[in-house]
């Protein structure tokens, strides 16, 4: 029995390599390498006309980091960005959950149409859709306020919450709800004890898909927010395009990445603990 297994295994391993190599290469070239370049840039000096000063001239240093950590405004803007992202995620969840549930519980033939309607906004350009909000919010006297920013953020990111939630809810076995009802659970209890806990993975991935892009988003705060509503995304963009301080921009975006990874790690740990809890 031992002899046939080893030759059968070798092609299997080769296939695994061939299949996983392209995506791995892609990630290394377009994610890992830029991240390393970005990290390296944060220790360099800004060039005279933008870009980076030649290494021989500027050398390496922690100026950009000192600059960020000395001025409390950067921490404040980062905190505000997290608050906006958190609030946007919460609002998206509140709006998306009933919608996703409605789609998942409609007749199978109608579901595809409803999903199509959810992703239909992607058919037009993001900026055009945000400009539409200027026209809506202008007469309401809400333009250039935090409310406008949040409204725009929620609107743009709602589909990213609906789709993972729907994908999760659609897979739930209806027999589980019948079993719960049969064993004495009313409508609300069935939701709380069966649907909600089973949809946690959908909630987590939807939240990540909203929270992380909102953190880096600069177009919406720029168009709908007032001058006081700069978020971390705007700040980073400014360093690269307007202030031409690449090291500072690199430092800020590196800090943002670290903060996002920390949040992701905490969430993942939380999810794992829930699963392991007796």
């Amino acid at each position, binding site marked *: 029995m031992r002899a046939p297994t080893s030759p059968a295994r070798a092609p299997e391993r080769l296939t695994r390599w061939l299949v996983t190599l392209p995506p791995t290469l892609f990630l290394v070239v377009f994610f890992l390498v830029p991240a390393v370049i970005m990290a390296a840039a944060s220790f360099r000096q800004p060039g005279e006309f933008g870009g980076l000063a030649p290494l021989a001239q500027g050398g390496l240093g922690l100026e950009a980091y000192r600059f960020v950590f000395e001025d409390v405004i950067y921490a404040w803007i980062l905190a505000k960005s997290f608050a906006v992202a958190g609030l946007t995620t919460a609002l998206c969840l509140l709006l998306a959950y009933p919608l996703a549930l409605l789609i998942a519980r409609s007749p199978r033939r109608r579901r595809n149409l409803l999903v199509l309607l959810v992703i239909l906004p992607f058919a037009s350009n993001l900026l055009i859709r945000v400009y539409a909000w200027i026209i809506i919010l202008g007469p309401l006297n809400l333009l250039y306020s935090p409310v406008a920013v949040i409204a725009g953020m929620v609107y743009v990111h709602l589909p990213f919450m609906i789709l993972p939630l729907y994908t999760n809810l659609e897979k739930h076995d209806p027999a*589980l709800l019948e*079993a719960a009802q*049969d*064993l004495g659970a009313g409508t609300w209890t069935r939701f709380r004890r069966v649907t909600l806990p089973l949809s946690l993975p959908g909630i987590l991935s939807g939240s990540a898909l909203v929270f992380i892009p909102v953190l880096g988003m600069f177009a919406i705060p720029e168009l709908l927010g007032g001058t006081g509503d700069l978020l971390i995304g705007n700040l980073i963009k400014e360093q690269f395009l307007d202030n031409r301080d690449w090291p500072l921009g690199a430092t800020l975006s590196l800090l943002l990445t670290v903060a996002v990874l920390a949040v992701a790690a905490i969430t993942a740990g939380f999810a794992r603990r829930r699963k392991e809890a007796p």
Partner: protein
Amino acid sequence: MALLEIRNVTKRFGSLEAVKEVSIAIEAGEFFTLLGPSGCGKTTILRMIAGFDAPDEGELFLDGRPLSGIPPEKRPVHTVFQSYALFPHLTVAGNIAFPLEMAGKSRDEIRRRVNETLALVHLEDKGGAYPDELSGGQKQRVALARGLVNRPRLLLLDEPLGALDAKLRERMQVELIALQREVGVTFVFVTHAQQEALALSHRIAVMKEGRVEQLDVPEVLYSSPRNRFVANFIGTINLIDVEVREASRQGLRLAAAGLGEIAAPPQAGATAGARGTLALRPEHIRLSPPSEKPELKNHFAGTIREYLYLGDVTVYKVALDNEVLLEALATNGAPGRARFHEIGDRVNVAWRHDAGAYLAS
């Protein structure tokens, strides 16, 4: 008064009548079985008892009180689903605790009853496991424990053994009987496996196309089926076309083409001249070598056509001289002498005058 009374219930899905004028009374403590082929309406009846479907006509009564308008979560009726429907995000103990939590029991009582019930289904060490870590038989037991833990008035079981392999199925049947006797909960059991129904039930309702064809204890269903459908559905049976020569309180004298006269037990409603069927169980037929003098009243000459050796028994297909093919069952009692007859052997085919049942057609 019956625990559950199903009175004249009809259920339609569009133009299809899934259940037709069914009336059944189930007594407290009974192991009651609905038996019938696929699509005959068994699940539909269970769903009406559980409250997931409402009858279009008729009414169901529990302890004499009508059930209509009471939602499933308020009925003292629990179901063991064919797919088990265990909650994947809860442990075995969490699943079993669920109905107790719904009933608002105290934490101490929940812990105690969950442990008791785990012991009842022999899963003491699996309380902390998740359903996807269990084998089919273990899942089955968890589903049973969850249905029983809060002692419902009625436990509905929809083909609960359907997904198990033959060996495990047999073992679960034995456990199911013991469990029902131990907890005293009334079971309404659904199956399309006739042997399972015979083995487990106090009473069986045999269903066909939404109707109850016969409702009785297993022995009567087996020995006195009311019609060809029931006779065929329960066990194997030989059917011989006959005409009634003479009917009396002592018995029937039947005539079969090419065979001559057959004596059969009395049957109400059989009148001389009527045409019908004689239903005869294979184990009631005795085969013997032509050299032995037959001592039974019904005896005919035949030829062995085929046999099927099954270990404990051998099934013979034997053709009578009028080309009627009968199945006969011989117990292989004596060791080392499994088969008595070979293909082509001439044999005497005999059965007692009180064996078989006459079915009017």
